[in-house]
């Protein structure tokens, strides 16, 4: 394990309050684990922030921080970026890799690894502003922004205005690693509108399958026109796709100077190649500033990620390989349907599981924004706590389906009418996916 000297201010004497807060995070996490209540990251972080509301800022001080946010791909891109920044022995990078992406989760991760000089933090879309103020990040990665949990987070335009305000407070990135570099997806007009307020932006043409939330121009209320070539522009004002530093073209990353790099990753699907490109572009300046490598180094390391908290993994259940996929909102489901078309057999059965708890959003209306019509021809099983909503949606989509209580029972139901060895695709939203993992 590599142990690096810490910057002076990280080892400076801390206030009694901060010390108490730090100690309580560890204590609550130990207690939580001992009681079998999960990894306890959020509980510990909450108590720590209660004792010392400034704990996120204090625990971030003296480290190089990268923030990753967006509607879809946060957890995967966070993992890819942390992997790209890690030495082969894995030392030196801390990350909130359990998906606890609000300040309590950030604090728990940071306090749990006081010696790590680098931190890659997945940030809930609604907390970007606070995290920018408190962690003074070196890099901010903005993936995409579309409708998700409208009852909890906010409508897309309210959110994008808050991002824009927060990003406008950043200072320009310098070659030595000072200031903040924003790595932003140029193919998402909402992201582009927010990121354009930042002084230093590296634009990546990462693609965006979902345009339905970006038709109204965020600058003037005009209409955003998308062309087949991937460009976009407002029909009234001069807001248009920025010139990119790098473009994702198939399985290659093409830089503005024409250099081409292979995106050789183990995760399936075009959206994961996009996530990998964003991670590599974000990792390169950090590696360069630390004298630890460059874009090639980052790209070489990404192939080591084969699954992310169970997502994209394949399990075996009664002779059937079952691929586990997570999709939380219309854009995410659409991307997963693309993945099914790209990497699977069009007759493979699908098991679909939907819950509507706090982490999922209580409103299931979004099911009608998902193009379930694309599953016509596959046997489908609806499960999860909101399987009746899903069943009605599938009925109107013309998809033959059964409705079964319990995700593992639903997989068994699909298996019963699938030839031995045939693959089953499991798609669940956030807590439905976690429920299945717990059941298996």
């Amino acid at each position, binding site marked *: 394990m590599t142990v690096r000297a810490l910057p002076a201010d990280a080892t400076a004497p801390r206030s009694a309050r901060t010390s108490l807060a730090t100690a309580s995070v560890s204590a609550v996490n130990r207690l939580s684990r001992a009681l079998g209540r999960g990894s306890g990251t959020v509980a510990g972080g909450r108590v720590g922030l209660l004792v010392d509301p400034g704990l996120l800022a204090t625990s971030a001080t003296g480290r190089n921080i990268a923030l990753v946010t967006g509607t879809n791909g946060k957890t995967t891109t966070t993992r890819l970026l942390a992997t790209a920044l890690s030495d082969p022995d894995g030392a030196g990078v801390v990350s909130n890799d359990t998906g606890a992406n609000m300040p309590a989760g950030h604090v728990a991760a940071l306090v749990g690894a006081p010696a790590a000089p680098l931190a890659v933090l997945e940030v809930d879309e609604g907390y970007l502003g606070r995290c920018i103020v408190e962690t003074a990040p070196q890099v901010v990665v903005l993936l995409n922004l579309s409708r998700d949990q409208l*009852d909890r987070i906010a409508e897309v335009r309210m959110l994008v205005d808050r991002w824009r305000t927060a990003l406008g407070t950043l200072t320009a990135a310098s070659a030595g690693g000072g200031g903040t570099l924003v790595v932003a997806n140029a193919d998402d007009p909402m992201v582009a509108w927010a990121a354009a307020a930042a002084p230093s932006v590296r634009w990546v043409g990462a693609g965006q399958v979902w345009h339905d939330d970006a038709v109204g121009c965020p600058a003037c209320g005009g209409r955003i026109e998308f062309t087949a070539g991937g460009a976009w522009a407002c029909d009234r004002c001069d807001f248009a796709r920025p010139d990119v530093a790098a473009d994702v073209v198939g399985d290659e990353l093409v830089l503005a100077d024409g250099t081409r790099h292979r995106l050789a990753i183990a995760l399936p699907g075009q959206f994961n190649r996009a996530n990998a490109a964003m991670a590599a572009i974000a990792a390169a300046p950090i590696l360069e500033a630390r004298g630890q490598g460059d874009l090639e180094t980052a790209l070489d390391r990404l192939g080591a990620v084969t699954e992310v908290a169970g997502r994209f993994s394949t399990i075996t259940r009664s002779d059937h390989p079952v691929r586990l996929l997570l999709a939380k909102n219309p854009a995410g489901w659409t991307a997963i349907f693309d993945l099914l078309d790209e990497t699977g057999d069009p007759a493979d059965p699908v098991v679909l599981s939907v819950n509507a708890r706090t982490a999922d959003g209580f409103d*299931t209306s979004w099911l009608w924004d998902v193009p379930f019509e694309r599953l016509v021809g596959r046997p489908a099983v609806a499960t999860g706590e909101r399987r009746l909503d899903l069943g009605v949606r599938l009925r*109107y989509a013309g998809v033959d389906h059964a409705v079964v209580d319990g995700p593992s029972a639903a997989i068994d139901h699909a298996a019963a009418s699938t030839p031995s060895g045939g693959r089953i695709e499991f798609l669940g939203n956030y807590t439905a996916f976690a429920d299945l993992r717990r059941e298996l």
Partner: protein
Amino acid sequence: MSAGPRRLVIAVVYPDLLGTYGDGGNGVVLARRAAWRGIEVELVQATSDRPVPRADLYTVGGGEDGPQVRAATTLLEDGTLVERVAEGAVVLGVCAGFQLIGTTFPDNLDRPHEGVGLLDLTTTKGTGPRAVGELVATPAPDAPRTAGGDRLPRLTGFENHGGVSAVGPRSRPLARVERGVGNGSGDGTEGAWSHRVLGTYLHGPVLARNTALADVLLGWALTPAGAPEGTVAALEPLDDHEELALRAERLEATDGGRTGWRDMARRVLTRR
């Protein structure tokens, strides 16, 4: 059976501006339910870059403040929706779509904007927190009835809005709120309607959870424009067991699985 058209054009109005809450599903529900009954149906996604098509039934969905203003302005400039309603076309407006088919609605700075004026409805920005959650409402005694003359069953859906809507004398409230906020104007009402135009804060989408209401809208669209007020063409029944199971589950979830004495009292007192 009806003597009206056996062919329907259903238009989802401006899905590019007004489609935030899955309300495009209302068009799908209407089109499927018509097609399952052997009615020839065309479902049009009427985007805002083209003239509004001449349809028999229009759905106008929810949306965010900026696109809502743009949608209302464009609909007024276009004129076809207002013209078709005068000729007897049916309109369902949901959430922002409900507000903008009214007379006045607010933008994000609470400046009033002119609505399309299909309903006598004035919406202002609420001062309290946004209304977010399950909404259950009992149709008013004078609300639209089914083809058989029955009152519509309780309406269930999910609301998410910050507007307060007052129904004026030229329209009528659709329902009385049991759970949730609805119009939020202090009179306990939800939604509004007049002639063949109906608006509501319910999404879910509303017609997937309330198929009886979907069939009233289809019945209106299949009734000749000159027929007496309240005439609803009868449609053959469908196997709605999945929709009915969903309704029952949602109503039970919002009732907490049992009916408390307050609800019993409210139901008795509000019964006609």
